[in-house]
């Protein structure tokens, strides 16, 4: 909850900064002052977006607003055409793409990790294997000092505490990444629970949003849950080392998340990076995407508006933006992914003519 308050305050601060820096920007670029971009969606990349959006406003004077309303909300806002672009952690399936009012393209913006966060004082560096993850999150292991967990974590004293699983009570792209990973490592999970933005949970209790889950875990001894990495690092919540497909226990870090994206990426960039084959990869990693309409001339949008949109998104793929990712514990996109994103942006049109060269 503390985090929620921080974020709200942050939003105020950002909007305040936006308006002041815009005044400065008036002098620098008189052209951009008329155009403001509105976006909404995933909360998972929000710490990163808040930062880079602000620095773009400083640089160009273009006003940017981002509403962290969840991936589903981002998709719905784009469907309703009330934003310039949406943001989501779960890419749109072929089925969903077909249902959108017009052709939509995805561009990945940054790499992030979903961490297994827990609250066990004195038990840092917990190692969780596939089997343990399945048993803990299916509710088959209920105590932290269960011999199965102890056997995997020699040298760590585990308390006689009940395991409290905290999941999201709202629909979420973070849940999608987590459940996608669980479905890959556990057939039992895949059959009984499956993957999705919201699920029928076998056990546990819900809290709203990444900040809500992080706050509940921080306040509750014996709690465990999955959250976007920055939310755990910012509040100094313990995170577990997770077993990857090569059998190594990997700590979530910028290097291990980057390693997950080393493989081949399809041209439309729609790929889940969970359970990567790379031996150094953190297995619950993923892209987060920005989605926009391929044809930008809709609802009376001006060409200038469209041009500012794609110019900004193109800047997001530049090394200037990507190099800021590490400050908030996200990993920059691999070169190949950024190149593909730039290529996609060059297919975005206004009245049939491409906007960027």
């Amino acid at each position, binding site marked *: 909850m503390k985090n929620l308050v921080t974020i709200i305050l942050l939003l105020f601060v950002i909007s305040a900064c936006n308006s002041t820096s815009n005044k400065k920007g008036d002098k620098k670029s008189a052209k951009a002052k008329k155009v403001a971009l509105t976006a909404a969606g995933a909360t998972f990349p929000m710490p990163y977006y808040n930062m880079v959006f602000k620095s773009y406003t400083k640089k160009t004077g273009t006003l940017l607003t981002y509403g962290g309303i969840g*991936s589903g909300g981002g998709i719905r806002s784009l469907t309703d055409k009330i934003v310039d672009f949406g943001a989501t952690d779960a890419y749109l399936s072929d089925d969903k793409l077909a249902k959108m009012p017009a052709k939509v393209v995805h561009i990945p913006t940054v790499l992030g990790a979903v961490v297994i966060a827990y609250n066990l004082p004195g038990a840092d560096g917990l190692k969780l294997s596939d089997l343990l993850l399945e048993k803990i999150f299916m509710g088959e292991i209920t105590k932290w000092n269960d011999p199965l967990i102890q056997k995997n974590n020699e040298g760590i004293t585990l308390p006689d505490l009940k395991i409290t699983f905290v999941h999201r009570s*709202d629909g979420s792209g973070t849940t999608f990444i987590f459940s996608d990973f669980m479905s890959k490592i556990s057939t039992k999970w895949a059959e009984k629970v499956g993957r999705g933005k919201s699920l029928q*949970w076998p056990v546990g209790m*819900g809290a709203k949003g990444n900040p809500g889950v992080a706050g509940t875990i921080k306040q509750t001894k014996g709690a465990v849950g999955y959250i976007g990495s920055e939310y755990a690092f910012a509040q100094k919540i313990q995170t577990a080392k997770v077993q990857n497909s090569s059998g190594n226990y990997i700590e979530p870090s910028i290097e291990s998340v980057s390693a997950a994206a080393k493989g081949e990426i399809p041209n439309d960039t729609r790929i889940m990076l969970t359970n990567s084959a790379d031996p150094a990869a953190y297995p619950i990693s993923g892209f987060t995407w920005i989605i926009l309409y391929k044809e930008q001339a809709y609802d009376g949008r001006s060409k200038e508006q469209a041009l500012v949109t794609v110019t900004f998104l193109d800047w997001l793929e530049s090394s200037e933006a990507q190099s800021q990712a590490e400050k908030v514990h996200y990993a920059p996109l691999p070169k190949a992914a950024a190149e593909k994103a730039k290529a996609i942006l060059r297919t975005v049109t206004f009245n049939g003519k491409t906007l960027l060269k």
Partner: protein
Amino acid sequence: MNTDKITKAVLQFSSLIILLVAGGMIFSLVEGAVPAFKEFGFKFIFSNNWNPTEGKENFGALPFIAGTLITSVTALLISLPLSFSASLFLSEYYRRTRMAKVLGMMVDLLAGIPSIVYGLWGFYVLRPVLIDLGLPNQGFGIFTASIILAIMIIPYATSLSNEIISMVPNELKEGAYSLGATKLEVITHVIVPSARSGIVAGYILSFGRAHGETMAVTMLIGNANIIPNGLFSTGNTMASVIANQFGEAEGLKLSSLIAIGLLLFLITGIINTIGKFIIKKMA
């Protein structure tokens, strides 16, 4: 022009707007809920299976109906002795004293605290205490939510009963005293019988308030979409599931959430009707 006519027109116009808004709300609730009822029929009300996973979608409202009713009833039971005592204290025993003034002010203050503040207090203060007392589920659940709800409805129940009890004619009370009745006898034989319809109405209003309460409950009930299997189990209420899942919902899920809203509306309506009926019978 006749000022009377203007007044009448303004009044008619305002009333019409209220009527339109209420009607529009009912209409859009019903319209939004139709797909869910078409898909699941009456099973929607009696099924406890709430599965939003794509491809396996199945929605049943029973866990939330149960959660709502259990928390509201428990809250009412917890608040009843407290608020009834407080209203007697204010209106009979310490009438027009400084003590009553202070207590009355505190009660009014409770009514003014926003829901989210109750939730925060429950999360950071009440929950740790309950964990120390050995409550399971880390202090989350029906019981914790009910305590917070009870505190939230105390001001309503108290000030309403207080008003009603103050309105009992003095002649009646004086008559009883002159016959040698004690204070307690006056309360049980004179005040309660003549004020009971008002008191009951106060509690029904409070019950209605407990039904729709969202934020504080969401923060404390545990948000598990199951039928609670006891007072200390986690659960979820109708208002809380809507607040939690509305943002991401689409298609059938969105319709199911609207249908839950409609059910909440109906249940509150039924309870209010029962309340009015009781008042009529007793008066």
